[in-house]
């Protein structure tokens, strides 16, 4: 039995690692995308440079905002870090901090507070971004729960570690192949990737996630960017732990997933906003089939 102090230290190491690696993973995806689009692209460390740059910039806050605007980035980052603490990455095996529902709910808290802050400044772009984000999440969350169900059915537990151990013994079933495809679709939507959102666009009218943060600048924006990158990495982690169809070291699975995102983002264009529902329904049907196949 490992004592509590050691557990806390392990947990902190896990959080630090995830936070430190997140910009790198996003940088790798961007670099791969650039290669596939005949561009050289920025360095894979660009994520860190951007955060450092934003950290040095002054923060401009409009007079029309309330304290929610100030608090939102911190709550967002905190919710993401708490969610990160739930992940069983080998550092905190014996402590059960929460199951997959806690994980999803924590991410939902982050989304809720960001949507609230997007409305706070009272700009039309913020409202548009917020309404689109909720529209997407209203579609993603039920499908995400279906995905959880399909992964939890076999092991009979909703603890991520339990599901993971079970999954390692059940590679290459029809069911797992279906849920792998479906969760990848969810991952793209949740991480704001093409075909649902375009993370690289400068066209403010088409943005979803970026639209909500248009009023932020300086350090607050840096915190939001960091939280978003960590959140993206967490979803990739869940995909790698529970839905990746081959048994490989976690780090390699993460890199392969990042590469797969880059490929999908390069081969597709953004779909019409109101077509996202059909896209999510497709993922949902795949998951239903996956559950039936079990």
């Amino acid at each position, binding site marked *: 039995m490992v004592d509590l102090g050691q557990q806390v230290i392990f947990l902190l190491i896990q959080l630090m690692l995830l936070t430190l690696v997140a910009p790198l993973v996003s940088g790798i995806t961007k670099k791969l*995308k650039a290669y*596939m*689009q*005949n*561009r050289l692209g920025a360095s894979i460390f660009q994520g860190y440079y951007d955060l450092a740059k934003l950290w040095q910039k002054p923060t401009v806050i409009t007079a029309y905002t309330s304290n929610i605007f100030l608090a939102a980035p911190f709550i967002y980052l905190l919710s993401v870090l708490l969610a990160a603490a739930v992940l069983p990455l080998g550092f905190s095996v014996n402590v059960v901090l929460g199951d997959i529902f806690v994980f999803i709910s924590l991410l939902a808290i982050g989304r809720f507070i960001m949507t609230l802050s997007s409305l706070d400044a009272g700009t*039309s*772009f913020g*409202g*548009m971004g917020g*309404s*689109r984000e909720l529209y997407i999440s209203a579609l993603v969350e039920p499908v995400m729960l279906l995905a959880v169900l399909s992964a939890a059915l076999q092991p009979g537990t909703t603890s991520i570690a339990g599901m993971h151990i079970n999954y390692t013994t059940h590679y290459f079933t029809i069911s797992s192949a279906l849920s792998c495809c479906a969760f990848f679709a969810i991952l793209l939507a949740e991480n704001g990737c*093409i*075909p649902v959102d*375009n993370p*690289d*666009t*400068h*066209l*403010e*009218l*088409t943005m979803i996630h970026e639209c909500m943060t248009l009023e932020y600048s300086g350090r607050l924006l840096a915190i939001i960017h960091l939280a978003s990158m960590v959140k993206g990495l967490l979803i990739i982690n869940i995909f790698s732990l529970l839905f990746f169809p081959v048994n490989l070291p976690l780090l390699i699975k993460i890199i392969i997933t990042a590469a797969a995102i880059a490929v999908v983002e*390069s*081969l*597709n*264009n*953004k*779909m*019409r*906003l*109101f*077509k996202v529902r059909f896209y999510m329904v497709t993922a949902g049907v795949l998951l239903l089939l996956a559950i039936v196949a079990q």
Partner: protein
Amino acid sequence: MMLKIKPNELLNSAEICAAKGQNALTAMFGADERELGAGYAIYILFTDLVSHDIKTIRVDFPADSELTYESLTPLYPAAAWYEREINDMFGLRPLGHPDLRTLVLHETFPWGYYPLRKDVDAKKQIRGQREYNMSTAQGNGVFEVAVGPIHAGIIEPGHFRFSQAGEDILQLDAKLFFTHRGIEKLVEGKSIDEALIIVERICGACTIANTLSYCQALEKLTEEKVPKYAWLLRMLLAEVERLYNHVGDTGNLCAGLGFAPIVSMGSALKEKIMHCNESLAGNRFLRGIIIPGGVRKAISPETLRELQVTLAEVEKGYENIVELLANHSDFLNRVHATGIVRKQTAVDLALVGVAARASGIDVDCRRDLPYGYYHTMNFDVPVEHSGDVYARLVIREREVTQSLKLLRQIINNLENSATQELSYENANYRTEEGSWGISESARGSNLHWLMLDKKQKIYRLFVRSASYPNWPALTMAVQGDIIPDFPLINKSFELCYACVDR
């Protein structure tokens, strides 16, 4: 053909010249001819597709008369912007105009300031205040989205005001002319060659079209003939300009829906042609090669060969892009039935170029008002009928094919040309006589109207590039679409700010 009339005869004359709406309103502009003893004038140009000519109406306003006339806009909506501009620039007021807000002069100008009148010194600093109210929709739950004039990308300034019900666009109003340069005023009193340098720089992407229209307007004022060799070279340049624009615009369209690989492919191909431009003209934007009377320099056999190699590469690369797009169902889903301009709207607004041809209007001034040696060439004018983003894309794709076909014929002709005569020499131009020149730019017909004074200096130059009549179509096209589709619809028109900020 020119019809000289009094203001009260305007509606009747316009009806005759429009021939029941068959002839499109091509341009409308004012002139201050008080020094010539004629008062103010409004010129109205209709394109007659039967006689392949432009019919001109000249409305005289004696300087001491009341400077008003009955607005043409209720009958010909295409006149709306022109009349607003004449009202801004000359103070000739259309009565019964449904929307007589200021157009070119924004809030910082005082009322009663008419910069294109000859007695106004445009160099004098002026400050004032006037109103510019954006037109918006009202109602329960309707909100406005203001975009620009400063945008996130590196583009020119324009302010767009969307009236929204959720994601649906109810109404769009565009406020342009933020960087109006007063070029029409600037060239007044300048010599023909000085003005040429300025005209070349009106727009970066339409250098040849603008120069060609300007030179043609001049050349109509003399009996001298432009040599055939020079004309062939001018046509070559015009088609190369169309080609690099269309290839780049096809790629850029994909930026509107986040399809980055095609954007890169389009830019790469466009860059290849622009390298070729450098060999042709000494610069990437084809400046300084066309002059009144002909061209400045001949094309060397090496450059011609380089061009042929580039054309072959571009053809192959472009076919690749077209094929990729044609087989991409997600892409097609975005462009089909998005941003529709109905044929009647296109007729009403007298659209030109790609936008007109995508909505079923069969116009192309290379064929309709032939200039140079286009009538000896074999080419088709593609027409589509759906009027959506897809139609405008397909028109561009097919025009690239036609331009390549034309270029091969022109190169063939150039190679077999016995002489290399570049231009006529020392022409004397008729003065105090208006004349027009037109050319088909990548975006549509580009019209210049010119009058010289007794010293062979510019007395009045009017420039109507292709984007001018097409801008209002954008506000019509987005109605019924959702706001995230706006960038895509906007890019499918590829409208130019500099072209209207002349």
